[in-house]
């Protein structure tokens, strides 16, 4: 390695240090339940880094270990080995009073809301403030502003049993934010809500993430949730992180089998059977044709690449299927086309597409 290279590495490291500070860091976390034959490895050597201010999603099937994983972050579950650091503080080492103090800075919301049935909405929101020993005057002010924040000011004296699922989760969110946490853990927070309510809860989460710079870690089995609000995603399968990276990246190039499985439900990248059959029947046998799936992401979606290709290379394009989607404001889509024409021209045309930054897959 010469000196310039060394300098380069050093500046990279420096930048990595300063740029997005790490909020949560898991290092080789292992959690095993039971013993002997009933032994279940819930987490196997899991390492993760969650950056400050991002929305980090963990997706997995039930039993994949995601619930255990999120519970380790506030030590509701204690791993057998590995360390978990939150804003530099080693959570895994904390006990008693120190642990409780650290937990006050970590909000958590749940699939089944877990509100106190004996308390009205405002008392539920006041609950964590009581625990933290906030004085009554300040407490009431805080409760009022939180109720406004989540849009429940008219439900002050309602009991949880009188609320809808979405309203209950709003109370849950207000309660979780009461002590101004730096991190919000969401344990399948939208899994028992209908799609419409899920959207509104996700919007609220995104809103608090932006307004307070809150770091959010959420676990889910719904790819929709990841697609809607997450910046980074980790795919967990049988206690292992099989894939991790920016959400857009995962959608564009899913590497693991587990990720592809999740993707299927959200993106219809398969050619519908009807079109596939029709296309085969309709394609002229005597001419050279190539069926290609073109995936595009980001800015390229706005460019008229296909028509340029048709004009420049004099090929015919039959669009069999097209789909455009948005992953957290980034356009993402795929088109399945049948390109017909001279063999060389088709090859040149496809090369042109690749050069434009599109991902091609010959079918």
């Amino acid at each position, binding site marked *: 390695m010469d000196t310039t290279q060394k300098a380069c590495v050093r500046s990279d490291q420096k930048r990595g240090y300063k740029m997005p500070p790490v909020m949560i860091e898991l290092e080789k976390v292992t959690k095993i339940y039971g013993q002997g034959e009933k032994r279940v490895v819930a987490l196997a050597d899991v390492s993760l880094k969650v950056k400050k201010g991002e929305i980090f999603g963990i997706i997995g099937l039930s039993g994949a270990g995601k619930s255990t994983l999120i519970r380790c972050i506030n030590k509701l579950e204690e791993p057998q080995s590995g360390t978990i650091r939150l804003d530099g503080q080693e959570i895994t080492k904390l006990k008693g009073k120190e642990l*409780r103090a650290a937990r006050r800075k970590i909000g*958590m919301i749940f699939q089944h809301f*877990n509100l*106190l049935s004996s*308390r009205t909405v405002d008392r539920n929101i006041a609950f964590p403030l009581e*625990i933290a020993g906030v004085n009554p005057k300040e407490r009431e002010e805080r409760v009022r502003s939180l109720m406004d924040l989540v849009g429940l000011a008219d439900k002050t004296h309602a009991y949880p*049993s009188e609320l809808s699922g979405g309203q209950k989760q709003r109370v849950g969110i207000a309660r979780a934010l009461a002590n101004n946490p730096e991190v919000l853990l969401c344990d399948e927070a939208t899994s028992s809500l209908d799609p419409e309510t899920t959207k509104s809860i996700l919007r609220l989460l995104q809103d608090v993430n932006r307004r307070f710079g809150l770091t959010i870690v959420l676990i889910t089995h719904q790819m929709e949730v990841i697609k809607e609000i997450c910046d980074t995603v980790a795919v967990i399968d049988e206690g292992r992180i099989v894939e991790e990276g920016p959400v857009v990246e995962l959608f564009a190039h899913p590497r693991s089998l587990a990720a592809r499985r999740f993707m299927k439900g959200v993106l219809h990248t398969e050619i519908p059977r009807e079109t596939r059959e029709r296309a085969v029947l309709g394609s002229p046998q005597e001419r050279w044709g190539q069926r290609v799936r073109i995936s595009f992401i980001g800015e390229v979606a706005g460019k008229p690449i296909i028509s340029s290709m048709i004009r420049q290379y004099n090929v015919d394009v039959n669009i069999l299927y097209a789909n455009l989607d948005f992953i957290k404001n980034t356009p993402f889509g795929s088109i399945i086309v049948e390109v017909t024409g001279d063999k060389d021209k088709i090859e040149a045309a496809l090369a042109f597409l690749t050069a434009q930054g599109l991902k091609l897959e010959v079918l």
Partner: protein
Amino acid sequence: MIWSLIVKATVETGYMVGVALVLSALVGIPLGILLVITAPRHIKPLPLLHRVLSVVINVGRSLPFIILLVAIIPFTRWLVGTSIGTAGAIVPLTISAIPFMARVVESALLEIDWGVIEAAQAMGGSTRQIIAKVLIPEAVPGLVLGVTMVAVSLISYSAMAGAVGGGGLGDLAIRYGYQRFRGDIMFWTVLVLVVIVQGLQSFGGWLAAKLNHR
């Protein structure tokens, strides 16, 4: 004459049951809470203490009241100076109701959704805070029903206490109704007992429903 007897006996029963209920609640409720929270995987796991408490409570629950009553006579005499009369009856009544109360509290606390307790833990609640702000308030409807149940069985136990001269409605029914062949007194005593138990149960049920926001 018959009415003054019945009124006097009813007051005695009310006194015995009332005092025994309050005393057994004072001991039994904390005991029940301790039993629950020390269980494995609860908020303050202390397996050994949990096992000991459970065994002690079971022993208390398995003693027939009439046996307990005579078995602890020396203790009763030492504690209140007499083993007969209402004061003498309160001691065994209380002692037999304590383990019952503890089990009743246990089942009321185990009714609470674990997620709610976990949420309080996640907020950084201490054991004390979780007991005071989650376990007890959330279990109130169940506790009311449980205490009602204990009160009803205390009434029936108090009738047995009558056998050792404890006074009260049971005593009246045995001494006048049975031993003196006074069918009318027997009838009225039984009727009063039925009305009291019925009223107590209805009140308990009503109160529990009113306090239940689940």
